[in-house]
């Protein structure tokens, strides 16, 4: 193919260098985050707060796989989290399985549930969102109605002293680490590019030879897997669960808000959004306990109103030169 003379011979090398720079920055952020979380139990820090931070980072990263990369917004995302908590609790409490096996099994249960719900991916937009929300409600009712000796009925299950909080904490740390590494792999992979093409125009992607439903299913499975793992670690850490809190739609709402605030579709966005908002939430709660929800709601409204693509997405939109530093 004849060239018009504008292509530089070392163009690809420059591209690789830019990718490396991006990756280095991203892995530095991951390392700082992981190290800070790792040190908390050793220094008698606020274990519950940091656990919750890690859980939200994992959930926001997980929802980004399906909402940010393919444009599908699963309002019933909590179903995967809830099923993860229940599978872990049932395996530990009823079957006497070790938590070390129960949490990975929770991840697998998330995959199975994702495959079971996969036909919903044929729907689009608000229809998909509503059906996925309904499925979460179905899961919640199912857990309440199953025999009490298995799920504990509407009272839920209490693992009591059988679980070690610190071990649960480190399990969550490992899960968050794997989620973040998976996100960075996806961001640079061909699968990630295909997913982003599907998000922007599924028909055009299909006409370009992308098997849209199959590729979308991969994102759906990854998304469900990490939510279920996070649920499993939550059951391990807290040692107690019930159907109302395990399938609370507020979990989906918060996950979506955190991920959107940072920037869905970017790798770093959900992390930035979660860390920022969870800290703000904590500060507001300490300083203005009465106004907590009001102030947090106001901050989120302003953020979505003025930065609809989130902090990171807006930065990339308005300052194009920053794109080479942001994953």
């Amino acid at each position, binding site marked *: *193919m004849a*060239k*018009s003379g*504008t*292509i530089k011979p070392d*163009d*690809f090398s420059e*591209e690789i260098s830019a990718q490396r720079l991006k990756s280095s920055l991203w892995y530095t952020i991951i390392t700082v985050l992981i190290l800070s979380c790792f040190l908390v139990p050793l220094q008698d820090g606020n274990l519950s707060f940091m656990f919750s931070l890690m859980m939200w980072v994992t959930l926001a990263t997980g929802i980004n796989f399906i909402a940010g990369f393919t444009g599908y917004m699963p309002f019933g995302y909590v179903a995967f989290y809830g099923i993860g908590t229940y599978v872990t609790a049932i395996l530990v409490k009823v079957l006497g399985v070790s938590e070390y096996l129960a949490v990975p099994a929770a991840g697998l249960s998330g995959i199975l549930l994702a495959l079971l719900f996969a036909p919903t991916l044929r729907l689009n937009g608000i229809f998909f969102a509503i059906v996925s929300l309904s499925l979460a409600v179905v899961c919640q009712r199912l857990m309440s109605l199953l025999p009490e000796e298995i799920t504990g009925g509407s009272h839920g299950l209490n693992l009591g002293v059988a679980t070690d909080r610190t071990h649960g904490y480190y399990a969550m740390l490992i899960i968050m680490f794997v989620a973040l590494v998976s996100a960075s792999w996806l961001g640079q992979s*061909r699968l990630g*590019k*295909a997913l*982003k*093409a599907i*998000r*922007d*125009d599924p*028909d*055009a*992607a*299909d*006409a*370009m*030879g*992308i*098997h*849209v439903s199959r590729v979308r299913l991969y994102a759906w499975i990854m998304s469900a897997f990490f939510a279920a793992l996070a649920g499993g670690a939550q059951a391990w850490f807290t040692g107690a669960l019930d159907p109302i809190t395990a399938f609370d739609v507020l979990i989906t709402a918060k996950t979506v808000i955190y991920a959107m605030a940072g920037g869905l*579709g970017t790798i770093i966005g959900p992390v930035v959004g979660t860390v920022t908002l969870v800290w703000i939430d904590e500060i507001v709660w300490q300083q203005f306990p009465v106004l907590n929800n009001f102030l947090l709601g106001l901050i989120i409204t302003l953020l979505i109103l003025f930065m609809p693509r989130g902090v990171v997405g807006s930065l990339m939109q308005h300052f*194009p030169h920053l*794109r*080479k530093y942001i994953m």
Partner: protein
Amino acid sequence: MIPKIVLQLKGLNKSFGGLLAVKNVDMLVNESSISGLIGINGAGKTTLMNCISGIYRADSGSLDIMGVSCLNWSPHDIARLGVGRTFQIPRIFKRINLIDNVMVPALNDNTDNKTLYERATECLDKVKLYDLRHNNAEELSGGQQKLLELARIMMFNPRIILLDEPFAGVNPTLCRLMIERIKELKEQGKSFLLVSHDLTSIYQLSDHIYVLNQGQVISEGNVDYVRNDPEVIEAYLGNA
């Protein structure tokens, strides 16, 4: 020598509710040729394109591509048979950069990333979008988006290319560039089905023209035959 048929439609029908948008259409596209498809608004041109590329499911008829019967196959399976297309309103991947946009049709290839990248930059260079390669596609003008679709098709490297209104809303300079690239691709052995309202360009490029009116082929033949066919003149200009 008898030209090889790469795309053949027989008795294709497509309706929406009670409206028959495509009626019993027969059509041939030969290898390394450009077949033009013209007609007034609502004639069924884009519907026909969508039936060929698998976006719409036809009601009846047959579609053979390179000898393979593939009516109502999914769009990605049609694409893998070697059919690429552009859209009337450019359908680019807005929030990803131009390089990644162009790479999309080659993501399934067993090519290393370096080769893929180099091919993508070459395709962008051919349509003079190389300097914008790191921009997101949503930052391009309408005409540039049409060029980006053409670059994507070049990257795809299909045997058959369906171009839906490639010159609509494009300034004359970019139009000339597109015509140049289409001629180059034809010389490389690609076959085209070209839909356009721009009769000057379509007369200039096409080897054979089909005229659709109310979903039916009312005339077909070479440029001279079609432009002088009274039925075509009546369809375009009315009885006045």
